[in-house]
């Protein structure tokens, strides 16, 4: 029995970051699946761990940690195993810069599109009174608004267009950056790659007009190189929905 428990949903976005970091370090942990689509993250048992009602969260002994990127940094510093931060100080800065840029600028736009085209429709089919009751249990007011928009499909055209603009620009910037070196932020595989893979692994499927072997060869090279890592295979095997299965697109020789 490990004294580490990770509360996570699919290997995807924020949940997938600490999952993959733990796998890369070779840390044994208890996996506690939180079904986001059943609103497990707002149930009292989970709110006792993370009162914000968002996933992921990790417990290590009596310590409770939240915030996916910060958890990855903790995992890297606390446990033995391969180093996931470069030693060079400029490279370390670049890893942090790219993680913040992805977490705060690029990922929210990906996420808005994902909630609008997939999360919303998956949940919408259920009984509306039940859904309203579920929304009322969400602790953060901002999230209540987001869930309402997803369930009722009421994202404005302007906010969707802005998200699309950011995703298109972000893909271009990623492609340029990956043309400069082998990995995203340094010459070594790092937390920035783990973060970026969780954001972009299904990019050639979700945004085929923006990312494919012709348009973004560097992104595709990078995604395939990460997909080839044993830790990634182990991590994505913990997925239970079709969402995680999308990763197999990277097995195609030409996309």
């Amino acid at each position, binding site marked *: 029995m490990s004294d580490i428990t990770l509360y996570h949903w699919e290997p995807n976005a924020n949940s997938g970051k600490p999952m993959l970091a733990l796998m890369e370090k070779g840390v044994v942990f208890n996996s506690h699946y939180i079904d986001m689509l059943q609103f497990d993250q707002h149930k009292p048992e989970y709110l006792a761990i993370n009162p914000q009602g968002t996933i992921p969260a990790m417990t290590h002994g009596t*310590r409770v*940690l*939240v*915030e996916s990127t*910060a*958890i990855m*940094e*903790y995992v890297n*510093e*606390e446990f033995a195993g391969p180093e996931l931060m470069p030693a060079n*100080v*400029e490279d*370390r*800065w670049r890893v*942090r*810069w790219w993680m*913040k*840029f992805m977490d*705060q*600028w690029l990922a*929210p*736009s990906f*996420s*808005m599109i994902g909630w609008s085209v997939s999360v919303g429709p998956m949940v919408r089919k259920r009984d509306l009174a039940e859904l309203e009751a579920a929304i009322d249990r969400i602790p953060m007011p*901002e*999230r209540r608004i*987001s869930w309402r928009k997803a369930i009722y499909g009421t994202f404005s055209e302007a*906010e969707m267009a*802005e*998200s699309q*603009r950011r995703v298109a620009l972000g893909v271009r*910037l990623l492609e*340029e*950056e990956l043309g400069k070196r082998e990995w995203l932020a340094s010459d070594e595989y790092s937390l920035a790659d783990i973060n970026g893979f969780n954001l972009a692994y299904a990019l050639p499927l979700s945004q085929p007009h923006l990312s494919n072997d012709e348009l973004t060869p560097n992104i595709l090279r990078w995604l395939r190189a990460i997909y080839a890592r044993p830790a990634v295979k182990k991590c994505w095997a913990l997925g239970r929905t079709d969402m995680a299965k999308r990763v197999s697109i990277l097995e195609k020789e030409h996309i």
Partner: protein
Amino acid sequence: MATVLYHGEPNGPSLSVLAALAETGLDIECRSIDLLAGERHSLPGLGETIARDMGIEGEGPVLVVDGEAMTESVFLAQYLDEKAGGVGLQPSDPYAHWEMMMWCRQITERLSPAAALLGNLKYSTPRLAETSDADFAVIGKNIVSDDLRGRWGLVRSGTTEEAQLADSRAKVVQSVERCENKLADGRDWLMGDFSIADLETYAWLAGMQLICPDAFGDAPKTKAWLARVKARPSVVAALARSTVADPLESWAPGPEINRWG
């Protein structure tokens, strides 16, 4: 290695980085620029510009190392600490380090957009309103990011909604409350030992004393802590670089207010 720190008046992110630099004792050339004149967007000798152009922080300082623009005040402070071989600005224990990073994230994600909105409305809007359309267009032309240019436009026009102002003031109040709670056990510094968290929090909160004085009414420990940070030799040295009467009145477009989760 050619290294230059381009910074604005010692307030907000420029203050935290200048003070962090002074804490490390590193010998790095500092050049003061006029952020509200758009000078950050026409720096000489840049090869890699993405961090200057797309940084979340907005008009923060830019550290140029061998032509690469480096930004984001917390990460620059970490860089300087690590470059100097670790002068104690970050806890070495992984859990304490996580706590410090979480604290700084609260400040940069919640307090700094709110403080920047309030500070800019009060001090930058009048100045930019005096800038001619032609001069403002020149500044805008040099700004690569559409969303940052949009924030400049909002500052110049002074457009905000009452709800956003109220939300920003509430975030300042919450930040003061969080400080007061942290300091409740009588500690001198937010994380126990002095750290980047003190510099980053001070840098965004100090100016709020002029704008939201009521937020500090019931916060004696926070006020005493602000005075302690202000008296640190590194902060004194950073403030001495000011070229204006009161640097707390110097603001420039900051981070955006979260648009989604």
